[in-house]
C-alpha cells in the first residue's frame, strides 16, 4: 500500500468519524466542532484528488463561513454546555434500521459495478481554466448558471435581512 492510499484511508476515517460524532454527540457545541473536523477532512480529500481550487473554496466557505455561522447561532440561542435531550429509543432503532438498510442497498448496487477507465489526457485544473470556462458564453460555458446563482445569493441576502429585521409595533 502506497503512501497516497494510506493518506486516503486516514482522511476517510477523519471524515466518517467526525461526521458520526457530529450527529451523535450530546453537547451541541462539541457536535459543531466535530462537523468542523469532518469538513476539513473533506477539504483534504479534495487536495488528495489534486483539486486545489475546490479544496480552497471548501475551506473558505464551509470552515470559515458556515461553521462559524453555526457556532455563532449556537451561542445566541442556547447554553452551549447544556446536554441535548436524548431521542427516544424507538426513534433511534428505526432510524438506524432505515439508514443501515439504505446503505446496504446502495452499496450492494455500487460494489460490483465496474467503472470504465478514462484514457483522456487530464485537463489542467488551474484557476485560469476554471475561470475561462465559467465565464464563457459558448457551448459548455457556465456564464448563465453563474448569473443565476449570483441573483440567488442576492435574494438570500435580502431575505436574511428581511427575516432578521425587527418589525416596529404600530403604537410607537
Amino acid at each position, binding site marked *: 500500500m502506497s503512501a*497516497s*492510499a494510506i493518506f*486516503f484511508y486516514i482522511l*476517510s476515517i477523519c471524515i466518517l468519524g467526525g*461526521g*458520526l460524532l*457530529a*450527529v451523535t454527540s450530546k453537547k*451541541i457545541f462539541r*457536535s*459543531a466542532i466535530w*462537523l468542523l473536523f*469532518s*469538513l476539513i477532512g*473533506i477539504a483534504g*480529500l479534495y487536495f488528495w*484528488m*489534486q*483539486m486545489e*481550487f*475546490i479544496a480552497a*473554496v*471548501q475551506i473558505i*466557505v*464551509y470552515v470559515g*463561513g*458556515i461553521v462559524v*455561522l*453555526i457556532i455563532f*447561532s449556537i451561542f*445566541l*440561542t442556547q447554553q452551549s454546555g447544556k446536554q*441535548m*435531550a436524548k*431521542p427516544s429509543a424507538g*426513534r433511534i432503532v428505526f432510524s438506524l434500521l*432505515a*439508514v443501515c438498510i439504505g*446503505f446496504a442497498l*446502495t*452499496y450492494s448496487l*455500487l460494489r460490483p*459495478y465496474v*467503472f*470504465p477507465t*478514462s484514457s*483522456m*489526457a487530464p*485537463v489542467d*485544473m488551474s484557476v485560469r481554466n476554471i475561470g475561462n*470556462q*465559467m465565464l464563457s458564453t459558448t457551448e459548455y460555458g*457556465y456564464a448563465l*448558471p453563474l448569473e443565476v*446563482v449570483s441573483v*440567488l445569493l442576492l435574494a*438570500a441576502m435580502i431575505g*436574511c435581512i428581511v*427575516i*432578521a429585521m425587527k418589525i416596529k409595533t404600530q403604537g410607537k
Partner: protein
Amino acid sequence: MNEVPLNHVLFVSTALFFIGMYGLFTRRNMITMLMSVELILNSVNINFVAFNKYLYPDKLDGVFFSIFIITIAAAEAAVAIAIIINLYRSHHSIDVKDAEEMRF
C-alpha cells in the same frame, strides 16, 4: 491516487450521506438538523469531484457543479440561521416540537 479505486471513494461519500440522514432522523434541534443537511450536501460534492477526477479528467463540469452546490449551501445556511434566530426570539426554543403551529 490511482491505487485507490473509485468504489472506495464512493463508499466514503455513501457512508457520509447516510450518517447525515441518521442525524436528520434522530436530532430534534434545528441547528443540529442543519448540520446534518451540510453533511449530506458535502457527500454529494465528494461524488461530483470524484467522478470528474476518475472518469472524465479531460472535463471540468464536476468542479462547476460542486462550486454551485457550495454556493447554494452557503445561501441556505444563512437563510436557515436567520429563520432559527427569529424563531428563538418568538418561541424561546429551537426545538422542532415547540414550533408546530403550521404543522396541520
